[in-house]
């Protein structure tokens, strides 16, 4: 039997390596720092409780990202993320740490998250899996229980909608 400390050390190592990326995915899915924290926490708690199975998976990282997406779709909280104050860059930083690497613009983030929040949750999940996590159409379809045609349709539609929203004048952004 594996000792608890071994499991914890292994899981902690995994979490340390992957937490930031998972948090960013959760952030894009939920468009809210607090909801992202809740989501990534819920997904990782499930992962920890099933660590024996996760570590034996062919691709544990993909497995955990799958848990995150399924948790988002099945257990998302009652309020849609559009109701949250996504236009406030201070709020957007939320509980996560930020390390200024000079490459990120809070205003840009507000605009992107505001636009993402306008998409239906399933479309948002398609966008995040396809264009952020770089999953193939086949992988995205499997992860979301959709047909490949549905993934293609949804991603094209979501892309068009996002581009239109992001091209809107900045009066939609409260930071302007």
């Amino acid at each position, binding site marked *: *039997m594996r*000792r*608890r*400390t071994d499991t*914890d050390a292994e*899981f*902690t190592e995994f*979490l*340390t390596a992957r*937490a*930031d990326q*998972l*948090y*960013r995915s959760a*952030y*894009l899915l939920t468009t809210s720092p*607090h909801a992202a*924290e809740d989501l*990534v*926490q819920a997904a*990782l*708690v*499930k*992962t*920890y*409780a099933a660590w024996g199975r996760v570590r034996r998976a062919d691709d544990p990282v993909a497995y955990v990202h799958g848990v995150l997406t399924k948790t988002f779709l099945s*257990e998302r*909280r*009652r*309020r849609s993320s559009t109701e949250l104050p996504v236009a406030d860059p201070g709020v957007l*930083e939320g*509980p*996560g*740490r*930020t*390390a*200024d*690497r000079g*490459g*990120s*613009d809070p205003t*840009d*983030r507000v605009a*992107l*998250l505001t636009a993402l929040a306008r998409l239906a949750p399933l479309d948002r999940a398609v*966008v995040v899996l*396809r*264009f*952020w996590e*770089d999953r193939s159409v086949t992988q995205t379809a499997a992860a979301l229980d959709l047909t490949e045609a549905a993934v293609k349709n949804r*991603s094209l539609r979501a*892309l068009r909608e*996002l*581009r239109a929203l*992001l091209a809107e004048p900045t009066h939609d952004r409260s930071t302007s």
Partner: protein
Amino acid sequence: MTDLDNGADLRERMDHATSELSAPDHLTSVVLADGRRLRRRRRVLTVATGTAAAAVVAALVVASLGGDASTTGADVATQPTPTPTSESSASPRGETPSPWDGGGEPFPEAPPGWWDAPGHLLASQLQVHLPDGVSVVRTEEDTGWLHGELDAPTGPGGFEVILYPPDPDKGRDNLARSRCGKQARYTDTCEEIDDADGKPVGRVATFLQGQVTFYEATLLGPEGGLVHLGTWNSTDEKPGDGTEPSAERPPLTPDQLRELVQDPAWTSYRP
């Protein structure tokens, strides 16, 4: 295919917008604490099922041998049954000088305390303290955790009792769970419960998820632990969006929940 078709522009934008974001510092400790709790709950359920099966087999064997299975008082075990996981042996209980000193482990388990009250004890306490006309239909039980269904004149609904141990993050998680204001996000109404000095020590909150109404009450207990009671008007295992309510309102009112959460019985257990 152009960049506009393959979403390269969007990917770049998402990359740019999130590149400086990092997961919260306390994520590891919270996940390990909650993950252990979830795993322990699953193990307890497994062990409970196995124990019940073993008891049935033992009873059948005794009956088939025609023996007398009764024991004298001296034969009855007076020590608690050891926990069937390796976790308790890895972290001897009652020897830690401070709640979260865990013998050098970076993320120790919670120390023993009233939050370890067995689920059957919580069920008994709930039965005793329920208002007239409200009864327990079924329960699932675990250490510091009770979940199930109540019946009331207004109709059936769900409920839960969760006893939170002191949290490792300087008590901030439990403090947040006991306050209104920005910490009580997702709530529609929130009223704080004050102690005799007027200091907030808990809250009663209500919110709607889909068509299901939830009432929740929390109260900070001794040593940094927290009592959480919840009830809702659904008998689904996971009520939420798309769930049909089982009654017009939850089996208990917010006022009844407020009174119930302040009962000292919840924090009276001694390990």
